[in-house]
Protein backbone atom coordinates (compact mmCIF):
# COMPACT_ATOMS: atom_id res chain seq x y z
CA UNK A 1 0.00 0.00 0.00
CA UNK A 2 1.37 3.33 -0.98
CA UNK A 3 -0.31 5.98 1.11
CA UNK A 4 1.44 7.21 4.15
CA UNK A 5 -0.69 10.14 5.15
CA UNK A 6 -4.39 10.69 4.69
CA UNK A 7 -5.39 13.02 1.97
CA UNK A 8 -8.59 14.82 2.53
CA UNK A 9 -9.60 16.01 -0.88
CA UNK A 10 -11.45 19.29 -1.15
CA UNK A 11 -15.19 19.12 -0.82
CA UNK A 12 -16.44 18.35 -4.29
CA UNK A 13 -19.62 20.37 -4.31
CA UNK A 14 -22.16 22.10 -2.11
CA UNK A 15 -24.69 20.12 -0.09
CA UNK A 16 -27.53 20.92 -2.49
CA UNK A 17 -25.52 19.32 -5.29
CA UNK A 18 -25.38 16.04 -3.39
CA UNK A 19 -29.08 15.46 -3.05
CA UNK A 20 -30.37 11.97 -3.71
CA UNK A 21 -32.77 12.08 -6.64
CA UNK A 22 -34.66 9.31 -8.40
CA UNK A 23 -32.74 9.99 -11.61
CA UNK A 24 -29.42 9.61 -9.78
CA UNK A 25 -30.53 6.38 -8.15
CA UNK A 26 -31.52 5.05 -11.59
CA UNK A 27 -28.00 5.83 -12.85
CA UNK A 28 -26.54 4.08 -9.83
CA UNK A 29 -28.70 1.03 -10.40
CA UNK A 30 -27.72 1.00 -14.05
CA UNK A 31 -24.06 0.90 -12.98
CA UNK A 32 -24.84 -2.00 -10.66
CA UNK A 33 -26.78 -3.89 -13.32
CA UNK A 34 -24.09 -3.59 -15.96
CA UNK A 35 -21.22 -4.43 -13.60
CA UNK A 36 -22.85 -7.51 -12.10
CA UNK A 37 -21.53 -10.64 -13.88
CA UNK A 38 -24.87 -12.45 -13.63
CA UNK A 39 -26.52 -9.74 -15.76
CA UNK A 40 -24.53 -10.59 -18.85
CA UNK A 41 -25.17 -14.31 -18.36
CA UNK A 42 -28.89 -14.07 -17.84
CA UNK A 43 -29.46 -11.58 -20.67
CA UNK A 44 -27.26 -13.60 -23.00
CA UNK A 45 -29.18 -16.74 -22.04
CA UNK A 46 -32.48 -14.93 -22.64
CA UNK A 47 -31.46 -13.78 -26.13
CA UNK A 48 -30.02 -17.19 -27.02
CA UNK A 49 -33.21 -18.91 -25.86
CA UNK A 50 -35.51 -16.53 -27.72
CA UNK A 51 -33.66 -16.83 -31.01
CA UNK A 52 -32.24 -20.35 -30.70
CA UNK A 53 -35.32 -22.17 -29.45
CA UNK A 54 -37.50 -20.28 -31.94
CA UNK A 55 -35.24 -21.35 -34.81
CA UNK A 56 -35.04 -24.95 -33.59
CA UNK A 57 -38.78 -25.29 -33.19
CA UNK A 58 -39.34 -23.71 -36.61
CA UNK A 59 -36.96 -26.30 -38.12
CA UNK A 60 -38.82 -29.05 -36.33
CA UNK A 61 -42.20 -27.87 -37.62
CA UNK A 62 -41.00 -27.40 -41.18
CA UNK A 63 -39.79 -31.01 -41.35
CA UNK A 64 -43.24 -32.15 -40.19
CA UNK A 65 -45.64 -29.63 -41.71
CA UNK A 66 -49.36 -29.83 -40.77
CA UNK A 67 -51.34 -31.89 -43.25
CA UNK A 68 -55.03 -32.06 -42.39
CA UNK A 69 -57.04 -28.85 -42.96
CA UNK A 70 -57.81 -28.26 -39.29
CA UNK A 71 -54.13 -28.35 -38.38
CA UNK A 72 -53.26 -26.03 -41.27
CA UNK A 73 -55.92 -23.57 -40.16
CA UNK A 74 -54.74 -23.73 -36.55
CA UNK A 75 -51.04 -23.37 -37.42
CA UNK A 76 -49.62 -20.21 -35.90
CA UNK A 77 -46.26 -19.41 -37.51
CA UNK A 78 -45.66 -16.44 -35.21
CA UNK A 79 -46.11 -18.56 -32.10
CA UNK A 80 -43.77 -21.22 -33.52
CA UNK A 81 -40.99 -18.70 -34.10
CA UNK A 82 -41.48 -17.13 -30.64
CA UNK A 83 -41.52 -20.41 -28.67
CA UNK A 84 -38.25 -19.42 -26.97
CA UNK A 85 -39.97 -16.63 -25.07
CA UNK A 86 -41.51 -19.25 -22.77
CA UNK A 87 -38.03 -20.35 -21.71
CA UNK A 88 -36.38 -16.94 -21.77
CA UNK A 89 -38.82 -15.77 -19.12
CA UNK A 90 -36.93 -17.86 -16.58
CA UNK A 91 -33.60 -16.21 -17.38
CA UNK A 92 -35.15 -12.76 -17.25
CA UNK A 93 -37.04 -13.47 -14.03
CA UNK A 94 -33.86 -14.71 -12.38
CA UNK A 95 -32.05 -11.55 -13.47
CA UNK A 96 -34.67 -9.52 -11.62
CA UNK A 97 -34.34 -11.71 -8.54
CA UNK A 98 -30.54 -11.47 -8.50
CA UNK A 99 -30.39 -7.71 -8.83
CA UNK A 100 -32.01 -7.28 -5.44
CA UNK A 101 -31.66 -10.59 -3.56
CA UNK A 102 -27.96 -10.57 -4.49
CA UNK A 103 -27.58 -7.33 -2.55
CA UNK A 104 -29.05 -8.95 0.54
CA UNK A 105 -26.84 -12.03 0.11
CA UNK A 106 -23.64 -9.97 -0.14
CA UNK A 107 -24.61 -7.27 2.38
CA UNK A 108 -24.33 -4.57 -0.29
CA UNK A 109 -27.89 -3.59 0.59
CA UNK A 110 -26.64 -1.87 3.77
CA UNK A 111 -24.26 0.34 1.80
CA UNK A 112 -27.06 0.99 -0.68
CA UNK A 113 -29.58 1.98 1.98
CA UNK A 114 -26.99 4.09 3.81
CA UNK A 115 -26.60 6.03 0.55
CA UNK A 116 -30.35 6.12 -0.16
CA UNK A 117 -31.92 6.01 3.31
CA UNK A 118 -35.44 6.49 1.99
CA UNK A 119 -35.02 3.12 0.29
CA UNK A 120 -37.97 3.19 -2.13
CA UNK A 121 -36.03 5.03 -4.85
CA UNK A 122 -33.74 1.99 -4.89
CA UNK A 123 -36.64 -0.36 -5.70
CA UNK A 124 -38.00 1.95 -8.41
CA UNK A 125 -34.50 2.47 -9.79
CA UNK A 126 -33.96 -1.27 -10.04
CA UNK A 127 -37.39 -1.68 -11.66
CA UNK A 128 -36.56 0.91 -14.31
CA UNK A 129 -33.20 -0.62 -15.23
CA UNK A 130 -34.43 -4.24 -15.20
CA UNK A 131 -37.53 -3.35 -17.20
CA UNK A 132 -35.69 -1.27 -19.77
CA UNK A 133 -32.67 -3.55 -20.15
CA UNK A 134 -34.95 -6.54 -20.69
CA UNK A 135 -37.14 -4.68 -23.15
CA UNK A 136 -34.26 -3.22 -25.13
CA UNK A 137 -32.62 -6.63 -25.49
CA UNK A 138 -35.65 -8.84 -25.97
CA UNK A 139 -37.39 -6.68 -28.58
CA UNK A 140 -34.63 -7.13 -31.18
CA UNK A 141 -34.24 -10.73 -30.05
CA UNK A 142 -37.95 -11.43 -30.57
CA UNK A 143 -37.82 -9.69 -33.92
CA UNK A 144 -34.79 -11.73 -34.93
CA UNK A 145 -36.48 -14.94 -33.76
CA UNK A 146 -39.55 -14.04 -35.78
CA UNK A 147 -37.57 -13.27 -38.95
CA UNK A 148 -35.34 -16.34 -38.62
CA UNK A 149 -38.34 -18.54 -37.86
CA UNK A 150 -40.37 -17.22 -40.81
CA UNK A 151 -37.50 -17.68 -43.24
CA UNK A 152 -37.25 -21.31 -42.09
CA UNK A 153 -41.01 -21.84 -42.27
CA UNK A 154 -41.15 -20.28 -45.74
CA UNK A 155 -39.48 -23.45 -47.00
CA UNK A 156 -42.90 -25.08 -46.74
CA UNK A 157 -44.86 -21.90 -47.39
CA UNK A 158 -45.96 -21.77 -43.76
CA UNK A 159 -44.62 -18.29 -43.01
CA UNK A 160 -46.45 -15.08 -42.19
CA UNK A 161 -45.46 -11.43 -42.65
CA UNK A 162 -44.77 -8.92 -39.88
CA UNK A 163 -47.36 -6.66 -41.49
CA UNK A 164 -50.14 -9.22 -41.13
CA UNK A 165 -52.78 -8.36 -38.50
CA UNK A 166 -51.63 -8.89 -34.93
CA UNK A 167 -48.15 -10.11 -35.85
CA UNK A 168 -46.14 -6.98 -34.98
CA UNK A 169 -48.16 -6.69 -31.77
CA UNK A 170 -47.30 -10.28 -30.85
CA UNK A 171 -43.58 -9.62 -31.38
CA UNK A 172 -43.68 -6.40 -29.35
CA UNK A 173 -45.91 -8.13 -26.79
CA UNK A 174 -43.32 -10.88 -26.31
CA UNK A 175 -40.71 -8.29 -25.38
CA UNK A 176 -43.14 -6.48 -23.08
CA UNK A 177 -44.11 -9.74 -21.42
CA UNK A 178 -40.47 -10.61 -20.74
CA UNK A 179 -39.92 -7.16 -19.31
CA UNK A 180 -42.83 -7.67 -16.93
CA UNK A 181 -41.46 -11.07 -15.87
CA UNK A 182 -38.16 -9.32 -15.03
CA UNK A 183 -40.11 -6.96 -12.78
CA UNK A 184 -41.94 -9.89 -11.20
CA UNK A 185 -38.57 -11.46 -10.34
CA UNK A 186 -37.37 -8.14 -8.94
CA UNK A 187 -40.46 -7.79 -6.77
CA UNK A 188 -40.13 -11.33 -5.45
CA UNK A 189 -36.44 -10.82 -4.72
CA UNK A 190 -37.16 -7.63 -2.76
CA UNK A 191 -40.06 -9.25 -0.93
CA UNK A 192 -38.28 -12.49 0.03
CA UNK A 193 -34.65 -11.19 0.18
CA UNK A 194 -33.29 -14.62 -0.61
CA UNK A 195 -32.23 -15.74 -4.06
CA UNK A 196 -33.25 -19.35 -3.53
CA UNK A 197 -36.65 -18.52 -2.07
CA UNK A 198 -37.40 -15.89 -4.70
CA UNK A 199 -36.41 -18.16 -7.61
CA UNK A 200 -38.53 -20.98 -6.16
CA UNK A 201 -41.55 -18.71 -5.79
CA UNK A 202 -40.95 -17.27 -9.26
CA UNK A 203 -41.14 -20.78 -10.75
CA UNK A 204 -44.21 -21.45 -8.64
CA UNK A 205 -45.98 -18.31 -9.84
CA UNK A 206 -45.10 -18.96 -13.49
CA UNK A 207 -46.00 -22.67 -13.65
CA UNK A 208 -47.92 -23.62 -10.51
CA UNK A 209 -51.34 -22.02 -11.03
CA UNK A 210 -51.91 -23.78 -14.39
CA UNK A 211 -51.13 -27.15 -12.80
CA UNK A 212 -53.41 -26.49 -9.85
CA UNK A 213 -56.22 -25.24 -12.10
CA UNK A 214 -56.06 -28.58 -13.91
CA UNK A 215 -57.11 -30.28 -10.66
CA UNK A 216 -60.33 -28.27 -10.45
CA UNK A 217 -63.57 -29.32 -12.14
CA UNK A 218 -63.38 -28.37 -15.82
CA UNK A 219 -66.16 -25.78 -15.55
CA UNK A 220 -64.22 -23.89 -12.89
CA UNK A 221 -60.78 -24.26 -14.33
CA UNK A 222 -61.92 -23.04 -17.78
CA UNK A 223 -63.22 -19.89 -16.13
CA UNK A 224 -60.17 -19.25 -13.99
CA UNK A 225 -57.51 -20.27 -16.46
CA UNK A 226 -57.42 -17.08 -18.58
CA UNK A 227 -56.81 -15.01 -15.45
CA UNK A 228 -53.84 -17.02 -14.18
CA UNK A 229 -50.55 -15.07 -14.42
CA UNK A 230 -48.87 -16.73 -17.38
CA UNK A 231 -51.96 -17.52 -19.47
CA UNK A 232 -53.01 -13.88 -19.01
CA UNK A 233 -49.54 -12.55 -19.77
CA UNK A 234 -48.92 -14.58 -22.92
CA UNK A 235 -52.20 -13.46 -24.50
CA UNK A 236 -50.31 -10.47 -25.85
CA UNK A 237 -47.69 -12.71 -27.45
CA UNK A 238 -50.25 -14.62 -29.55
CA UNK A 239 -51.53 -13.40 -32.91
CA UNK A 240 -54.92 -14.96 -32.31
CA UNK A 241 -55.45 -15.71 -28.61
CA UNK A 242 -57.63 -18.71 -27.93
CA UNK A 243 -61.19 -17.43 -27.52
CA UNK A 244 -61.93 -19.79 -24.60
CA UNK A 245 -58.62 -20.17 -22.76
CA UNK A 246 -57.27 -16.68 -23.21
CA UNK A 247 -58.23 -13.08 -22.64
CA UNK A 248 -57.90 -10.47 -25.37
CA UNK A 249 -54.20 -9.59 -25.93
CA UNK A 250 -53.96 -6.29 -24.08
CA UNK A 251 -56.52 -7.20 -21.40
CA UNK A 252 -54.51 -10.32 -20.61
CA UNK A 253 -51.29 -8.34 -20.42
CA UNK A 254 -52.97 -5.79 -18.17
CA UNK A 255 -54.02 -8.62 -15.82
CA UNK A 256 -50.44 -9.90 -15.75
CA UNK A 257 -49.11 -6.40 -15.03
CA UNK A 258 -51.59 -6.18 -12.18
CA UNK A 259 -50.05 -9.28 -10.58
CA UNK A 260 -46.59 -7.74 -11.00
CA UNK A 261 -47.79 -4.45 -9.53
CA UNK A 262 -49.22 -6.23 -6.48
CA UNK A 263 -45.90 -8.02 -5.86
CA UNK A 264 -43.93 -4.77 -6.27
CA UNK A 265 -46.32 -2.93 -3.96
CA UNK A 266 -45.91 -5.61 -1.29
CA UNK A 267 -42.14 -5.43 -1.72
CA UNK A 268 -42.21 -1.63 -1.37
CA UNK A 269 -44.38 -1.87 1.71
CA UNK A 270 -42.01 -4.30 3.42
CA UNK A 271 -38.86 -2.52 2.24
CA UNK A 272 -39.71 0.63 4.14
CA UNK A 273 -40.31 -1.22 7.41
CA UNK A 274 -37.85 -4.03 7.81
CA UNK A 275 -34.38 -3.80 9.28
CA UNK A 276 -31.74 -4.06 6.58
Amino acid at each position, binding site marked *: *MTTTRPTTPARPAGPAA*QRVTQARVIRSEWT*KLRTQPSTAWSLLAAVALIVGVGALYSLLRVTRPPTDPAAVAGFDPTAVSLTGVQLAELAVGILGVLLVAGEYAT*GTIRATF*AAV*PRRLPVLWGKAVVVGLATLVLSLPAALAAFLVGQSILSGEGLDIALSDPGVARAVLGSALYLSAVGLLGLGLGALLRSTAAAVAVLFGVLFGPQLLAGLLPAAWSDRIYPYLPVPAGVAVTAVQPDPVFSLAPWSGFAVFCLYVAVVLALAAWRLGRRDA
Partner: protein
Amino acid sequence: MIEAHGLTKRYGDKLAVDDLTFTVRPGMVTGFLGPNGAGKSTTMRMILGLDAPTGGSVTVNGKPYREHAAPLREVGALLDARSVHPGRSAYHHLLALAQTSGIGRSRVDEVVDAVGLGGAARKRAGGFSLGMGQRLGIAAALLGDPRTVILDEPVNGLDTEGIRWIRSLLRGLAAEGRTVFVSSHLMSEMALTAQHLIVIGRGRLIADTGMEEFIAAAAPSLVRVRSTDPAALAALLRSRDVAVSGADDGALAVSGLSTDQVGRLAGAAGITLLELTAQQASLEEAFMDLTRDAVEFRAPTTGGAQQ
Protein backbone atom coordinates in the same frame (compact mmCIF):
# COMPACT_ATOMS: atom_id res chain seq x y z
CA MET B 1 -22.96 15.54 15.93
CA ILE B 2 -24.80 12.36 16.83
CA GLU B 3 -27.43 12.48 19.56
CA ALA B 4 -29.08 9.35 20.94
CA HIS B 5 -31.95 9.57 23.40
CA GLY B 6 -33.17 6.45 25.17
CA LEU B 7 -32.17 4.39 22.16
CA THR B 8 -33.44 0.83 22.56
CA LYS B 9 -33.44 -2.20 20.28
CA ARG B 10 -35.12 -5.47 21.13
CA TYR B 11 -34.77 -8.63 19.07
CA GLY B 12 -37.43 -11.02 20.28
CA ASP B 13 -36.86 -11.28 24.02
CA LYS B 14 -33.27 -10.08 23.83
CA LEU B 15 -32.42 -6.44 24.50
CA ALA B 16 -29.52 -5.65 22.18
CA VAL B 17 -29.45 -1.96 23.03
CA ASP B 18 -30.94 -0.77 26.28
CA ASP B 19 -31.90 2.86 26.80
CA LEU B 20 -28.72 4.44 25.41
CA THR B 21 -28.38 8.20 25.70
CA PHE B 22 -25.21 9.84 24.48
CA THR B 23 -23.86 12.63 22.33
CA VAL B 24 -20.97 12.35 19.91
CA ARG B 25 -19.44 15.77 19.38
CA PRO B 26 -17.58 17.17 16.39
CA GLY B 27 -13.90 18.02 16.41
CA MET B 28 -12.66 14.91 18.15
CA VAL B 29 -12.44 11.17 17.76
CA THR B 30 -15.00 9.40 19.92
CA GLY B 31 -14.29 5.76 20.61
CA PHE B 32 -17.20 3.38 20.97
CA LEU B 33 -16.10 0.49 23.14
CA GLY B 34 -17.66 -2.66 24.37
CA PRO B 35 -17.15 -6.39 24.33
CA ASN B 36 -18.46 -8.42 21.42
CA GLY B 37 -22.23 -8.45 21.44
CA ALA B 38 -22.46 -5.31 23.53
CA GLY B 39 -24.66 -3.66 20.91
CA LYS B 40 -22.14 -1.44 19.13
CA SER B 41 -23.00 -2.50 15.59
CA THR B 42 -26.73 -2.44 16.31
CA THR B 43 -26.39 1.11 17.64
CA MET B 44 -24.48 2.17 14.52
CA ARG B 45 -27.09 0.58 12.26
CA MET B 46 -29.80 2.52 14.09
CA ILE B 47 -27.85 5.76 13.67
CA LEU B 48 -27.89 5.10 9.91
CA GLY B 49 -31.58 4.20 9.83
CA LEU B 50 -30.83 0.64 8.72
CA ASP B 51 -32.48 -0.81 11.82
CA ALA B 52 -35.50 0.84 13.37
CA PRO B 53 -35.21 1.46 17.12
CA THR B 54 -37.73 -0.32 19.35
CA GLY B 55 -37.69 2.78 21.51
CA GLY B 56 -36.01 6.17 21.72
CA SER B 57 -34.49 8.11 18.87
CA VAL B 58 -31.22 9.10 17.32
CA THR B 59 -30.35 12.08 15.16
CA VAL B 60 -27.33 12.95 13.05
CA ASN B 61 -26.54 16.62 12.58
CA GLY B 62 -29.95 17.49 13.99
CA LYS B 63 -32.20 15.17 11.98
CA PRO B 64 -32.97 11.49 11.78
CA TYR B 65 -30.59 10.16 9.13
CA ARG B 66 -33.42 9.18 6.78
CA GLU B 67 -34.61 12.77 6.56
CA HIS B 68 -31.38 14.17 5.14
CA ALA B 69 -31.72 15.15 1.49
CA ALA B 70 -27.98 14.65 0.88
CA PRO B 71 -27.17 11.69 3.18
CA LEU B 72 -23.64 10.97 1.92
CA ARG B 73 -22.81 14.59 2.62
CA GLU B 74 -23.89 14.16 6.23
CA VAL B 75 -22.58 10.72 7.13
CA GLY B 76 -19.97 8.42 5.71
CA ALA B 77 -20.08 4.97 7.21
CA LEU B 78 -18.13 1.75 7.23
CA LEU B 79 -20.30 -0.94 8.77
CA ASP B 80 -19.06 -4.18 7.30
CA ALA B 81 -16.06 -4.51 5.03
CA ARG B 82 -17.68 -7.55 3.44
CA SER B 83 -20.70 -5.58 2.22
CA VAL B 84 -19.55 -5.66 -1.39
CA HIS B 85 -20.74 -7.75 -4.31
CA PRO B 86 -17.79 -10.10 -4.88
CA GLY B 87 -18.22 -10.03 -8.65
CA ARG B 88 -18.08 -6.26 -8.95
CA SER B 89 -14.89 -4.20 -8.95
CA ALA B 90 -14.16 -1.87 -6.07
CA TYR B 91 -14.30 1.05 -8.49
CA HIS B 92 -17.79 0.18 -9.73
CA HIS B 93 -19.01 -0.45 -6.18
CA LEU B 94 -17.89 3.06 -5.25
CA LEU B 95 -19.20 4.55 -8.48
CA ALA B 96 -22.69 3.10 -7.91
CA LEU B 97 -22.75 4.56 -4.39
CA ALA B 98 -21.42 7.91 -5.61
CA GLN B 99 -24.00 8.18 -8.37
CA THR B 100 -26.91 8.06 -5.91
CA SER B 101 -25.81 11.51 -4.76
CA GLY B 102 -24.52 12.85 -8.05
CA ILE B 103 -20.89 12.51 -6.96
CA GLY B 104 -18.61 12.31 -9.99
CA ARG B 105 -16.01 9.81 -11.16
CA SER B 106 -13.14 12.15 -10.26
CA ARG B 107 -14.16 11.99 -6.62
CA VAL B 108 -14.27 8.18 -6.82
CA ASP B 109 -10.70 8.23 -8.16
CA GLU B 110 -9.72 10.58 -5.32
CA VAL B 111 -10.99 8.32 -2.55
CA VAL B 112 -9.49 5.26 -4.23
CA ASP B 113 -6.11 7.00 -4.12
CA ALA B 114 -6.70 8.37 -0.63
CA VAL B 115 -7.13 4.89 0.84
CA GLY B 116 -4.29 3.42 -1.19
CA LEU B 117 -6.33 0.92 -3.19
CA GLY B 118 -4.73 2.06 -6.43
CA GLY B 119 -4.70 -0.57 -9.15
CA ALA B 120 -6.67 -3.07 -7.05
CA ALA B 121 -9.75 -0.87 -7.46
CA ARG B 122 -10.36 -2.31 -10.92
CA LYS B 123 -10.22 -5.88 -9.71
CA ARG B 124 -13.16 -7.90 -8.45
CA ALA B 125 -13.81 -7.15 -4.80
CA GLY B 126 -14.38 -10.85 -4.13
CA GLY B 127 -10.63 -11.42 -4.24
CA PHE B 128 -9.85 -8.73 -1.68
CA SER B 129 -8.12 -9.45 1.61
CA LEU B 130 -9.88 -8.25 4.75
CA GLY B 131 -7.49 -5.31 4.89
CA MET B 132 -8.26 -4.26 1.32
CA GLY B 133 -11.96 -4.67 2.08
CA GLN B 134 -11.53 -2.26 4.99
CA ARG B 135 -9.79 0.25 2.76
CA LEU B 136 -12.63 -0.04 0.26
CA GLY B 137 -15.18 0.48 3.03
CA ILE B 138 -13.32 3.56 4.23
CA ALA B 139 -13.16 4.88 0.66
CA ALA B 140 -16.95 4.52 0.51
CA ALA B 141 -17.27 6.37 3.81
CA LEU B 142 -15.21 9.30 2.48
CA LEU B 143 -17.08 9.60 -0.86
CA GLY B 144 -19.45 12.40 0.11
CA ASP B 145 -16.84 14.35 2.10
CA PRO B 146 -19.15 13.86 5.10
CA ARG B 147 -19.48 15.98 8.24
CA THR B 148 -19.82 12.83 10.31
CA VAL B 149 -17.82 9.64 9.91
CA ILE B 150 -18.98 6.36 11.49
CA LEU B 151 -16.63 3.40 11.33
CA ASP B 152 -17.34 -0.03 12.81
CA GLU B 153 -14.10 -1.79 13.73
CA PRO B 154 -12.04 -0.10 11.01
CA VAL B 155 -8.69 -1.58 12.01
CA ASN B 156 -9.92 -5.17 11.70
CA GLY B 157 -7.65 -7.01 9.31
CA LEU B 158 -5.31 -4.09 8.70
CA ASP B 159 -1.56 -4.49 8.92
CA THR B 160 0.57 -2.27 11.14
CA GLU B 161 1.00 0.34 8.44
CA GLY B 162 -2.73 0.31 7.78
CA ILE B 163 -3.48 0.78 11.46
CA ARG B 164 -1.12 3.75 11.62
CA TRP B 165 -2.77 5.15 8.54
CA ILE B 166 -6.27 4.83 10.03
CA ARG B 167 -5.08 6.48 13.21
CA SER B 168 -3.79 9.56 11.43
CA LEU B 169 -6.78 9.61 9.08
CA LEU B 170 -9.23 9.68 12.00
CA ARG B 171 -7.26 12.36 13.84
CA GLY B 172 -7.06 14.39 10.64
CA LEU B 173 -10.81 14.16 10.04
CA ALA B 174 -11.52 15.21 13.63
CA ALA B 175 -9.04 18.10 13.39
CA GLU B 176 -11.04 19.40 10.43
CA GLY B 177 -14.02 19.72 12.75
CA ARG B 178 -15.84 16.57 11.71
CA THR B 179 -17.61 14.18 14.03
CA VAL B 180 -15.70 10.90 14.13
CA PHE B 181 -17.32 7.89 15.81
CA VAL B 182 -15.28 4.69 15.78
CA SER B 183 -16.04 1.38 17.40
CA SER B 184 -13.33 -1.01 18.41
CA HIS B 185 -12.63 -3.82 20.79
CA LEU B 186 -8.91 -2.96 20.67
CA MET B 187 -8.56 -0.80 23.76
CA SER B 188 -4.92 -0.05 23.15
CA GLU B 189 -5.83 1.23 19.70
CA MET B 190 -8.46 3.55 21.12
CA ALA B 191 -5.99 4.88 23.66
CA LEU B 192 -3.85 6.14 20.80
CA THR B 193 -6.69 7.52 18.70
CA ALA B 194 -9.72 8.60 20.68
CA GLN B 195 -10.10 11.69 22.83
CA HIS B 196 -13.51 10.72 24.11
CA LEU B 197 -15.00 7.36 24.98
CA ILE B 198 -18.45 5.87 25.06
CA VAL B 199 -18.38 2.45 26.67
CA ILE B 200 -21.29 0.04 26.55
CA GLY B 201 -21.80 -3.44 27.92
CA ARG B 202 -24.85 -5.59 27.25
CA GLY B 203 -26.47 -2.72 25.45
CA ARG B 204 -26.21 -0.36 28.40
CA LEU B 205 -24.14 2.77 28.74
CA ILE B 206 -21.24 2.22 31.14
CA ALA B 207 -19.21 5.35 30.60
CA ASP B 208 -19.36 8.52 28.53
CA THR B 209 -16.19 10.37 29.36
CA GLY B 210 -12.88 11.81 28.25
CA MET B 211 -10.11 9.29 27.68
CA GLU B 212 -7.99 10.45 30.62
CA GLU B 213 -10.87 10.63 33.08
CA PHE B 214 -11.90 7.18 31.98
CA ILE B 215 -8.58 5.64 32.88
CA ALA B 216 -8.24 7.62 36.07
CA ALA B 217 -11.73 6.71 37.24
CA ALA B 218 -11.50 3.09 36.30
CA ALA B 219 -8.25 2.18 38.03
CA PRO B 220 -6.15 4.22 40.43
CA SER B 221 -2.61 4.81 39.34
CA LEU B 222 0.19 3.21 41.31
CA VAL B 223 3.66 4.38 42.19
CA ARG B 224 6.35 1.74 42.04
CA VAL B 225 9.21 2.45 44.37
CA ARG B 226 12.34 0.44 45.13
CA SER B 227 14.67 1.39 47.95
CA THR B 228 17.55 0.05 50.03
CA ASP B 229 15.17 -0.34 53.00
CA PRO B 230 11.69 -1.42 51.85
CA ALA B 231 10.42 -2.16 55.36
CA ALA B 232 11.23 1.31 56.71
CA LEU B 233 9.81 2.96 53.60
CA ALA B 234 6.59 0.96 53.83
CA ALA B 235 6.14 1.94 57.46
CA LEU B 236 6.82 5.56 56.59
CA LEU B 237 4.30 5.74 53.72
CA ARG B 238 1.49 3.59 55.07
CA SER B 239 -1.47 5.53 56.39
CA ARG B 240 -5.24 5.59 56.21
CA ASP B 241 -5.33 6.92 52.66
CA VAL B 242 -2.21 5.24 51.36
CA ALA B 243 -1.99 1.55 50.59
CA VAL B 244 1.38 -0.10 50.26
CA SER B 245 2.03 -3.61 49.03
CA GLY B 246 5.22 -5.44 48.28
CA ALA B 247 6.29 -6.68 44.91
CA ASP B 248 8.41 -9.79 44.25
CA ASP B 249 11.60 -7.93 43.56
CA GLY B 250 11.48 -5.99 46.80
CA ALA B 251 9.80 -2.98 45.23
CA LEU B 252 6.71 -1.43 46.78
CA ALA B 253 3.47 -0.58 45.03
CA VAL B 254 2.01 2.59 46.55
CA SER B 255 -1.43 3.91 45.82
CA GLY B 256 -2.72 7.24 47.06
CA LEU B 257 0.50 9.22 46.67
CA SER B 258 2.19 10.83 43.69
CA THR B 259 5.80 10.14 42.74
CA ASP B 260 6.70 13.63 44.02
CA GLN B 261 5.15 12.95 47.41
CA VAL B 262 6.85 9.57 47.77
CA GLY B 263 10.21 11.08 46.79
CA ARG B 264 9.95 13.97 49.26
CA LEU B 265 8.84 11.76 52.15
CA ALA B 266 11.69 9.30 51.49
CA GLY B 267 14.24 12.11 51.18
CA ALA B 268 13.10 13.70 54.46
CA ALA B 269 13.48 10.34 56.21
CA GLY B 270 16.90 9.73 54.66
CA ILE B 271 15.87 6.60 52.77
CA THR B 272 17.77 5.97 49.54
CA LEU B 273 15.53 5.37 46.53
CA LEU B 274 16.71 3.15 43.68
CA GLU B 275 13.64 3.46 41.47
CA LEU B 276 10.53 5.67 41.42
CA THR B 277 7.96 5.25 38.63
CA ALA B 278 4.35 6.18 38.09
CA GLN B 279 2.40 3.26 36.73
CA GLN B 280 -0.64 4.30 34.76
CA ALA B 281 -3.37 1.73 34.54
CA SER B 282 -3.70 0.74 30.92
CA LEU B 283 -6.87 1.38 29.01
CA GLU B 284 -7.17 -2.35 28.56
CA GLU B 285 -7.27 -2.90 32.32
CA ALA B 286 -9.66 -0.02 32.85
CA PHE B 287 -11.96 -1.40 30.21
CA MET B 288 -11.83 -4.91 31.60
CA ASP B 289 -12.69 -3.63 35.07
CA LEU B 290 -15.66 -1.64 33.84
CA THR B 291 -17.18 -4.25 31.60
CA ARG B 292 -16.63 -7.03 34.12
CA ASP B 293 -18.71 -4.99 36.55
CA ALA B 294 -21.36 -4.41 33.93
CA VAL B 295 -21.62 -8.10 33.34
CA GLU B 296 -21.83 -8.85 37.04
CA PHE B 297 -24.54 -6.26 37.65
CA ARG B 298 -26.86 -8.23 35.43
CA ALA B 299 -27.64 -11.80 36.28
CA PRO B 300 -27.00 -13.94 33.21
CA THR B 301 -30.51 -15.40 33.25
CA THR B 302 -31.00 -15.34 29.48
CA GLY B 303 -27.69 -17.07 28.92
CA GLY B 304 -28.18 -16.66 25.16
CA ALA B 305 -25.30 -16.13 22.80
CA GLN B 306 -24.66 -12.50 22.06
CA GLN B 307 -25.21 -11.14 18.56
